[in-house]
């Protein structure tokens, strides 16, 4: 077995300490009794209780989840379609423009995307609210979905689709019965990515939301501008906890599946 040299051990320790200490502090101080965030005054869950009574935050959270569910679902459908067109569509008019429009939003500063969408919505007279945020989020997260799905499609053995056609499937049946079930993990991770992006987004949502619809990041941002607050710490802790549980579960499930597949393949070779 390989052992880590002291240099690697030190750089890994320092690196991960840097990545995690700020979050750990945040979590610890969300249980602080005092209103002063940087002075420890005993364990308490009062900020969580206050958070649960804060109507504005709860409303914003509800709006955020609604937006995230709608936009990520729509983005997954559109993004998968776009990936399929990019990888399997062959040549068509304006293909370069299309792939450019898929990749550009990934590196586009959010302020520009937000500004341009807002100007569009105003231009066509669309009232800003949940609908406009959903449209905006769908547009940029579909590009992420399509990158995730197309990287899976590129490595997808094309002869599987041909085999389906050969055995009597129409093109649509081949996609539904063979392609989709096999790329499903990529589609699901695309959805999760779109969902998280939508939950996290502040800038684009700020541009495209109206007074009727405030999302959680907008709410947090306006609170945080005034300084650190224990209530925000509590809220952050909840969000960090959800993500951590999700990511760890996902990686355990994947690890388990990979291990099982490998074991079964070994058994198959031996038999």
């Amino acid at each position: 077995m390989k052992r880590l040299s002291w240099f690697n051990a030190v750089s890994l320790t320092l690196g991960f300490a840097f990545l995690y200490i700020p979050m750990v502090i945040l979590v610890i101080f969300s249980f602080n009794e005092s209103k002063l965030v940087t002075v420890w005054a005993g364990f308490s869950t009062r900020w969580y209780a206050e958070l649960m009574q804060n109507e504005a935050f709860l409303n914003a959270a509800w709006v955020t989840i609604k937006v995230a569910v709608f936009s990520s679902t729509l983005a997954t459908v559109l993004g998968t379609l776009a990936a399929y067109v990019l990888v399997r569509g062959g040549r068509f008019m304006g293909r370069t423009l299309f792939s450019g429009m898929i990749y550009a939003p990934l590196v586009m500063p959010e302020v520009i995307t937000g500004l341009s969408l807002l100007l569009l919505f105003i231009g066509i007279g669309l009232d800003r609210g949940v609908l406009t945020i959903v449209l905006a989020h769908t547009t940029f997260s579909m590009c992420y979905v399509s990158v995730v799905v197309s990287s899976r499609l590129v490595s997808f053995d094309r002869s599987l689709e041909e085999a389906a056609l050969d055995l009597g499937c129409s093109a649509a049946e081949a996609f539904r019965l063979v392609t989709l079930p096999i790329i499903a993990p990529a589609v699901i991770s695309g959805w999760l990515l779109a969902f998280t992006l939508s939950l996290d987004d502040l800038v684009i949502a700020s541009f495209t939301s109206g007074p009727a619809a405030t999302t959680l990041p907008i709410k947090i941002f306006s609170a945080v501008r005034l300084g650190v607050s224990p209530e925000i710490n509590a809220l952050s802790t909840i969000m960090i906890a959800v993500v951590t549980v999700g990511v760890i579960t996902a990686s355990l499930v994947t690890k388990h599946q990979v291990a099982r597949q490998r074991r079964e393949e070994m058994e198959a070779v031996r038999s």
Partner: protein
Amino acid sequence: MTASVFEPWNDPEAKPLIHFQNVTKRFGEFTAIDNLTIDIYEREFYALLGPSGCGKTTLMRMLAGFETPTEGKIFLAGQDIAPVPPNKRAVNMMFQSYALFPHLSIWENIAFGLKREGMAKADIQQRVEEMLRLTRLEKFARRKPHQISGGQRQRVALARSLAKAPKLLLLDEPLGALDKKLRQDTQFELMDIQEKTGTTFVIVTHDQEEAMTVASRVAVMDHGKIIQVATPDRIYETPNSVYVADFIGDVNLIEGTARPTGSDTYAMSWHEGLPPLKVQSPNSLSDGQKCHLAIRPEKVAINAEKPADADNAVQGRILDIAYLGNISTYHVELPTGAVIKAQTANTRRIARRAFTWEDTVWLSWTATAGVLLAE
């Protein structure tokens, strides 16, 4: 000719199952298939043999319907199949990668095509079990493709493509992924299954041994053209060109000029001061035509003394000996500078070997041992 011999290509009455009529396929500037015409008969085991890029895979994919000819027509049982999409053709394909659906069990993989046909449940059940029996996979029906070995996967792919009882089965390098020993066993299994089901098989391969073993006829391809179509023994014994002679097995090529001495006998002069070589060859050549004598190493005998009654004998010096266990190949340099390979079977233990390096030996062969090939 007895009735039991299977040679429909010699029967002028026989109707081919597949007929390629002047088919050309171009990809942009590249011509993959060049004005090709062939016939394949029912119940044949037809091998397309050639190096990679010779167009054999394109030919097969046109039969499956994944490519359409740029020019020419393809007939299946007398019907032009150009307008028929792959999912409506009575043709099935076994893919090189096997293309087993990883999310479906072996049973579901085999049943996949039958379900698409809308076959009744009970019939599907029966047909799948029949296929599992044929390929000896009954025990593995519930497993997923990654839970079985490579050889078993190959049989699943075969069972799946045979399940719909196609008129024609296409096999794209079907044994390419198997190791050598398994491949040899599987070759016989393939032949057995082809005979049992009576399906017409077209196999694509770059492995000449495989083509020779399984096929009723072999088509040797190069640069999108068919060079020769014949039974394996005729391909080996009487190749029609230097390309085929060189591609199939090991061969010695001696350059010279032909002079007819009888209806099918020639004297080939090949070097100043040495007697011309006597050859009996089916390929007709004109007087003074440049040609090659192609002769297989195992047909060249090696002796210490000049054999008295040989048709052809030349003297040379042993340059190299390749000991392969069952046989030894001697590389003998002639006074002309050419190197000729001669093979002998090692029927005795190596200690009794007659020749060693630098020995002067006589090589000899009969007039019927080789063929003359035009340049």
